[in-house]
């Protein structure tokens, strides 16, 4: 059942924390991508009380692009990603929701591809993958790649999730599907992203994939420490034992 282009609206959820520099850029790229593709959209910025003035920049963007396109839903302090999605979705007027990172590692140019993919077979979820086809990463050294592929291999063996990139967070969901998934997930951080896909499969939702490029500009700040590895392992075992 293909959707009519005229009646679909895409709500982009952007949880932000200290993204003063990147927010205007990601918004500019999003606006351009949607204007070029002609789809109806809105960008919902969920700022968790960033001390660097992200909200102030968001307000300027609201003035430039209009309150119907830039929707601000700030929160007082840094709370979880799951609750950010719930909070953002409460006021989303689209029937589709796109989640992505606000730090420019995900490029809005892939959104039209996500949309076409979704329409191909009326997928409930479309997931961006770094591991298949023309997907890839910029800015990762050998060690990082090894850890990434090793971890992904482990999740494929243990969870057989039916999606090649489980920890990715660049995805398109039908709004009702995202609502259902967020309420069934209990994990935090990127294990949360893994759990979303695993639960989606459990609940019988269909998942399509689109190769994406991930431009990592913050790797220098060492995002992958011992803590991350441990919490990943714990999350994987939790999902292995409960799904």
């Amino acid at each position, binding site marked *: 059942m293909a959707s009519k282009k005229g009646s679909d609206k895409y709500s982009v959820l952007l949880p932000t924390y200290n993204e003063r520099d990147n927010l205007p*850029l990601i918004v*500019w*790229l999003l606006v351009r991508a949607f204007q070029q593709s002609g789809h109806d959209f809105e960008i919902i910025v969920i700022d968790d009380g960033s001390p660097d003035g992200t909200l102030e920049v968001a307000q300027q963007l609201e003035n*430039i692009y209009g309150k119907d396109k830039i929707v601000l839903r700030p929160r007082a302090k840094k709370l979880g990603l799951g609750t950010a999605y719930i909070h953002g979705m409460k006021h989303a007027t689209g029937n589709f929701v796109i989640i992505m990172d606000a730090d420019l590692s995900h490029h809005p140019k892939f959104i039209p591809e996500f949309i076409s993919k979704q329409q191909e077979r009326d997928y409930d979820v479309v997931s961006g993958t770094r591991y298949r086809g023309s997907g890839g*990463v910029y800015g990762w050294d*050998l060690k990082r790649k090894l850890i990434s*592929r090793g971890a992904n291999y482990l999740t494929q063996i243990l969870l057989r999730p039916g999606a090649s990139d489980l920890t990715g967070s660049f995805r398109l969901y039908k709004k009702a599907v995202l609502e259902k998934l967020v309420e069934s997930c209990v994990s935090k951080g990127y294990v949360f992203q893994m759990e979303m896909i695993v639960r989606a499969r459990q609940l019988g939702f269909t998942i399509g994939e689109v190769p994406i490029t991930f431009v990592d500009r913050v790797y220098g700040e060492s995002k992958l420490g011992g803590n991350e590895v441990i919490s990943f392992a714990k999350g994987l075992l939790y999902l*292995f*034992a409960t*799904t």
Partner: protein
Amino acid sequence: MTKLLQWLLGVGLLLGTWACLVWDLVPAQLSPQWKEVVWVAPMYLLMSFACYSLATIGYRVATFNDCEDAAKELQQEIEEARRDLAKKGLKLS
């Protein structure tokens, strides 16, 4: 059934069959040569799986796409975006 249970079931069945054959718990008359084969089979499978895993991961790391072009394109777009936003009145202190 959870993945854990699936694995336990699968491994249980395999090891159970192996134990039955190797310790003559079922009246299957295996010749000594076959017994030898079955006896080492689990270890052999484990080693093969380990080798396969290493090879697969190695291959995937080696063929992991490096997106130089994406990074360059992004840099150019960032500059274009900054100019356009400044024109539209964005003030970054």
